[in-house]
């Protein structure tokens, strides 16, 4: 991509963001604003050597809802983006080509959304997350429309281009987006019966410079036969490969106010999660099945226990296990303690066992937390089988939506004999309610 095109895309993207943010009459009646300024100092290994990174980040998020205007109802403007300046070595680890970049940033979201025709049609334009059905969660530059029809029926559709980092790697093999492509469209038709559930049929097609990247259709359902029981199911069929990419069923039952149990089964063919125009897509035909469940028990009002186990089996290959237990105790409003233990045995690979202890204590405007993590690997990773991390934070609530925090991390891992990171953070979170709402 030429520098001119890249620059033009940057200009258009940020001009759109600015236009959304510029003060104007009749601004959003509810505005959520969030700003986080972070300075992180840490050590990182690169090409066998060690460098010190000191990035200064500014993360901004602004959403204005119910913006008064003569055209659309529930007009919403959303912006979320970040800016980073590296005070140490080049932070953009993937940019190995000189010159080094010390200032960079990106947009996570920048969209405008409104409803017309008495809320029958909802439109969203800009950088957004498209969710639902076989699409899953797709970060997209484009348009999304939802038509609400009578009797609980509805249709949604979207079109656009999958997002790529920093605008400049769209349509190249360097994009970080797993939905690799330059053009995407899809949609979902559904029927909702309030209190009973919803059923939907969906499809997605992504093209990468004209070549097929993803072409799937699917169905999903959520049924609540009675109030305490929820049944969920979904399936995705790959039209390019003529195989099922994934199918899941799940039952969740609330026995009483203290006990919740769930059971689930999943069939997945992981190679179908690669783009179809990837050279890797031709080598494999993987099929995995997973079955398990979880159990949550509120022993007392302050003590909760959560247990989870899943068994995995790869067809014509190995098996794996995943289990986890977690107990959280909140003896007082400002005090929280927890312990966690679990393990993961991956199919045809390493396994690990871990324990974790964590807690938080609030004293007036101060909040302190401590998080201790220990992982023990069955086989050595980089010649070591142990990883320990201790993370402590101390925060101070300044008031008016402002909070300050310092945190430190000490680690002894397979890749670092010892490492210490430091982070200071100034955060601002505030909601402005400008109109009476009942």
């Amino acid at each position, binding site marked *: 991509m030429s520098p001119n095109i890249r620059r033009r895309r940057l200009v258009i993207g940020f001009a759109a963001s600015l236009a959304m943010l510029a003060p104007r009459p009749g601004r959003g009646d509810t505005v959520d604003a969030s700003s986080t300024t972070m300075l992180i100092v840490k050590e990182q290994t690169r090409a066998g050597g060690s460098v010190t990174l000191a990035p200064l980040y500014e993360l901004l998020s*602004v959403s204005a809802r119910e913006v008064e205007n003569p055209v659309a109802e529930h007009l919403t403007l959303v912006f979320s983006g970040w800016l980073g300046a590296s005070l140490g070595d080049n932070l953009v680890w993937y940019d190995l080509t000189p010159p080094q970049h010390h200032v960079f940033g990106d947009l996570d979201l920048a969209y405008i959304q409104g409803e017309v025709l008495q809320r029958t049609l909802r439109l969203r334009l800009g950088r957004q997350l498209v*969710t639902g059905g076989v699409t899953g969660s797709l970060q997209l530059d484009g348009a999304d429309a939802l038509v609400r029809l009578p009797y609980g029926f509805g249709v949604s559709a979207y079109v656009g281009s999958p997002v790529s980092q920093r605008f400049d790697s769209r349509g190249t093999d360097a994009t970080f987006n797993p939905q690799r492509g330059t053009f995407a469209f899809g949609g979902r038709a559904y029927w909702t019966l309030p209190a009973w559930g919803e059923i939907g049929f969906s499809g997605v097609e992504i093209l990468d410079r004209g070549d097929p990247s993803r072409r799937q259709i699917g169905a999903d359902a959520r049924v609540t036969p009675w109030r305490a029981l929820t049944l969920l199911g979904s399936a995705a069929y790959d039209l390019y490969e003529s195989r099922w990419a994934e199918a899941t069923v799940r039952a969740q039952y609330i026995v009483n106010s203290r006990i919740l149990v769930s059971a689930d089964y999943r069939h997945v063919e992981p190679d179908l999660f690669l783009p179809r125009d990837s050279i890797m897509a031709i080598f494999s035909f993987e099929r995995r099945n997973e079955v398990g469940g979880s159990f949550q028990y509120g022993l007392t009002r302050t003590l909760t226990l959560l247990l989870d186990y899943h068994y995995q089996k790869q067809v014509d290959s190995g098996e794996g296990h995943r289990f986890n237990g977690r107990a959280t105790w909140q003896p007082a409003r400002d005090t929280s303690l927890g312990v966690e233990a679990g393990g993961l045995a991956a199919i045809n690979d390493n396994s690990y066992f871990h324990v974790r202890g964590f807690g938080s204590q609030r004293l007036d405007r101060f909040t302190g937390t401590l998080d201790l993590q220990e992982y023990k690997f069955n086989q050595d990773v980089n010649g070591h089988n142990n*990883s320990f991390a201790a993370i402590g934070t101390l925060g101070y609530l300044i008031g008016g939506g402002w909070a300050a925090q310092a945190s430190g991390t000490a680690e002894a891992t397979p890749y670092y004999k010892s490492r210490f990171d430091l982070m200071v953070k100034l955060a601002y979170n505030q909601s402005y309610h400008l109109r009476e709402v*009942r």
Partner: protein
Amino acid sequence: MTPRTLLLGAALLATLFGGPAAAKEQPKFTFPHGTHVEAGISCATCHGSIAQAKAVGPTVHLTLPAGDAAKDCLQCHDKVPAAPPPREVERAITFSHADHLPYVKGDCARCHTALVEPGQTKAPVPPMSTCTACHNHSEEYAQAKCQPCHVDLKRYPLKPIADFTHAGDFLRTHGAMARTNAATCAACHEQTSCAECHAATTRPFKPDIQWPEQVEALFIHRGDYVSRHRVDFNADPASCRRCHGSAYCNSCHNEQGISPLSPLTPTSTPHPAGWNAGAVHGPAARQNIGNCAACHDQGSQTTCVNCHRNVDPHPPGWAKRHNKTTDVANNGMCRICHVQ
């Protein structure tokens, strides 16, 4: 300073100093509800149409009495006062006064225990405990079934995760929930909330870097994830692939000198001796091709092509599922080895 830097700076300044607009002044209420309730004036005298209201809003159901109906007013007032200007009420909840009033036998005070008085700008709204006094919503609450009663909950401050449980193994189940029920998620969460984890393509770091103080949160990549990411990937490659493309993996592997195209340490290899033998690396690739893609997904430049141009790499059953002519015509990847 580059145009990019200028634009980024401008966006930052616009957000910080453009800021939210000053709060719009709401007109103050002038009607003394308490005085009229004490005088025994029924709510229905002025709010008579509420009995037929199937929904809240968009305006208050206020109709001042006239004619004979106004005789209660004229006991104290010389004439019926003018109605206040219409006050818009936004619909944030699905609620039918018409359906509920018969249950309380028209006694509004059963729910409206506090009334707005002169000088106030906000009318007190019955709290949710008023609803749960009759409706058992504990199960709906635990399962995040806020709809169809709540239309939009985003305006309310999010409660701590410990209070609103999102019960069970929510980290792994919320995706399945969202697939069929995104509207429920959207009732409380703006996309900015989803993007904190799901905008993995553009976010500069993992969530626990930004929020180390959230020790109870179910962050997947907490702590030293570099050491265990390979085990997690082999346990569930599809989950990783939902957020991270091959280039994301390769960018770091390249930097660490373990990727074949890395300019830093081109001679290093993570593979054991004898790996190049087909009988060794072939089964591994068949079982989890994602492992290979984390370093070798470079299209025609991938090292796999060198040999597999001449050694059929396709898994059993490939020919049955594919039309070679169509594939080669429509997919440039096929043309790396096949002639159109």
